[in-house]
């Protein structure tokens, strides 16, 4: 008998979340349609790539990783950034951030799905991906850092999907979640978040063949830039939630996030300055990649405008967020958040991956820009990520709000 009610409970949960997801204003429906169109564009792009092979991209034997891996690297950081909400709300018992911690976790889930999709579309032989699955495949663990990355990313996805799912499910049924069932996983996920980004950095850092990446600062710098860009994206999502739903977010939450973002962004800029100093105070043969990135080599200077834009808007965004020239409503800080996100996306994406591969070990210098197929697929993956965040967040916020109203504000 007990099993029957449990099944019924699950069924009503699934039904309600589905209904909540498809119902909404005209604006919401249009938004969902746009996301579906983006995903269709991505599927079309992947269809072309599947037929032509990776020659449909602009990658080559010299720039062997391009736009996909660049975006992957950036998004691992966004996923790791959920820890900046989890840590204060569970370790320091910060009540304000506790209210939005679920939003951070959902953003992490969306970012992780995008990460894994980017790695998948980058594979030359996607049908053989089962060779990676432990048990039926032959994973090169612990030697290959890529195998580490696959394991930690999947583990982090499980942590960030299952813990909030359990809490929301309990709240849906008006129950208080049992601490011992989920708290241990929260603490694990804090360390795990740091691990996913450090290991992704080690993926590059561990290659002596590529002096531009073979740099012990890379791991810490990845974390600093992630803890700036990630909370910035979460802030944007919060602004959208605040204006588009009746789940209201107080100004002091934005302010706390702003302080986190500014601190991390300043540390990131310091480390960037330290790297630039090392490359240009006494340039060696190993500074060629940095030369290529910042000034161009042999007329190949396609990255130069990008990196200078990135550094400028990084600085500008950080300064605006730090000094708040527009007092009052936090929404005026949105452009600064966008600047910072784009700056870090360029610097940590294409500005990190491509110069690592150019000049090639045999000294060749070429330019790289993503092909149309790469752009289409990337648009599709971004659409997929936004879709996942939306369909997870919408019911979760309805349930949370309902629970808060019936059970007061005690967690």
């Amino acid at each position, binding site marked *: 008998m007990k099993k029957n009610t449990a099944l019924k409970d699950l069924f009503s949960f699934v039904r309600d979340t589905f209904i909540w997801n498809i119902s909404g204003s005209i604006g919401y429906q249009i938004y969902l349609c746009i996301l579906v169109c983006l995903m269709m564009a991505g599927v079309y792009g992947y269809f072309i790539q599947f*037929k*032509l*092979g*990776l*020659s*449909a991209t*602009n*990658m*080559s*034997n010299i720039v*062997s*990783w391009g736009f996909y891996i660049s975006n992957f690297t950036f998004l691992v950081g966004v996923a790791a950034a959920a820890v900046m909400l989890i840590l204060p709300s569970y370790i320091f018992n910060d009540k304000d951030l506790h209210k939005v911690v679920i939003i951070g976790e959902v953003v992490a889930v969306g970012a992780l799905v995008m990460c894994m999709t980017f*790695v998948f579309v*980058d*594979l*030359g*032989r*996607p*049908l*053989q*991906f089962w*060779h*990676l699955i432990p048990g039926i*495949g*032959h*994973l*090169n663990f612990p*030697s*290959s*850092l*890529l*195998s580490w990355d*696959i394991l930690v990313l999947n583990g982090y996805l499980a942590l960030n999907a299952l813990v909030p799912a359990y809490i929301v499910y309990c709240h849906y049924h008006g129950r208080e979640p049992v601490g011992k069932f989920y708290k241990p996983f929260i603490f694990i996920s804090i360390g795990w978040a740091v691990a996913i980004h450090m290991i992704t950095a080690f*993926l590059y850092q561990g*290659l*002596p*063949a*590529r002096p531009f990446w073979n740099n012990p600062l890379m791991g810490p710098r990845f974390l600093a830039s992630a803890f700036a860009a990630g909370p910035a994206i979460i802030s944007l999502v919060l602004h959208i939630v605040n204006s588009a739903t009746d789940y209201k977010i107080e100004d002091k939450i934005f302010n706390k996030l702003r302080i986190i973002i500014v601190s991390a962004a300043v540390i990131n800029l310091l480390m960037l300055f330290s790297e630039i100093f090392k490359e240009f105070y006494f340039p060696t043969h190993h500074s060629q990649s940095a030369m290529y990135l910042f000034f161009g080599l042999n007329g190949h200077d396609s990255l130069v405008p990008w990196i200078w834009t990135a550094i400028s808007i990084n600085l500008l965004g950080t300064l605006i967020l730090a000094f708040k020239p527009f007092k009052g409503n936090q929404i005026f800080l949105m452009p600064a958040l966008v600047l910072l996100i784009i700056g870090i996306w360029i610097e940590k994406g294409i500005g990190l991956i491509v110069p*690592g*591969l150019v*000049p*090639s*070990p*045999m*000294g*060749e210098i070429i330019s790289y820009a993503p092909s149309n197929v790469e752009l289409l697929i990337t648009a599709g993956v971004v659409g997929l990520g936004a879709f996942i965040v939306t369909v997870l967040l919408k019911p979760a916020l309805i349930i949370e709000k309902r629970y808060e109203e019936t059970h007061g504000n005690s967690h």
Partner: protein
Amino acid sequence: MDSEKKKKMNRRTFLKGAASTAIAGSAALTTGCKGKGLLGSSEAIALEFQEYFKKHYRLMTQTERDETIARLERIAKLKQDVDIDIDSTGPQENVLYGYAFNVTRCEGYMECVKACVKENNLDRASNTQYIRIFEMEHGQMSPDQGDGKYFHMVPKEGHFYMGVQCFQCNNPPCVKACPTKATWKEPDGLVVVDYDWCIGCRYCMAACPYWGRRFNWNQPQVPKEKITKKQHYLGNRRRVRGMMEKCTFCIQRSRKGKVTACVEACPTGARVFGNLLDPDSEIRFVLDNKKVYRLKEDLGTDPKFWYFID
């Protein structure tokens, strides 16, 4: 390589490629069909379907290896109508292959490159080459300063030439990087790839400090009459789009006691290949009597490829 050219080539050959490449999913659907369809004969599809589920080469028993080889030979017969002979000879006792390159003698004729392309069935469409020859000015020592794209009469006054290929490192970074153990170092020192196990992530390519690996961005094309039929499972057998490949010191030749194709083709005798464990071998004579050096020693990769000067 010129990516524009690569893509044009690809579109032209795409229809051909689609017809000849049966993907596992459609293979599963049409296995039951009789006769010749768009994707080739039903027998070829069934064989490719079995190939999809095969194990990593190193985990196979000799019987399983023989079975997959029989399938691959049959597929080549059905699809391209060529009789190939795939060998699976393992490493020999007391053999460790090494290579030496005489910088003084090489005059940049690139006969080695031509022989390598032919012997190893390299993709003609994208002009894949394992060996690269760099034209260097006196005073230079590292090929990344040289010219790898020279096209004129050789030898050129005041210049010398350096050949680069996979150095079969004793401590290979590519092997460490591969997430599926699809590339490894054999006991005789050859770094090989199980093409069918490679998923095409290209991490090994990023890890190689010598640019020793090549990726199949397109479906590789080798005209039927130019296929080298004596093949090795870990060597010059057919590769498809999305696989990594590399120089294996001509494993199909070296394991049969022959020298590599590049050594055989070299008109100036600049290339020396042999067993490092045999004290009477030519390679040992070079190492014992000449001043030798290796590229990027500081990385600790311990290449089994030395340069020397007469």
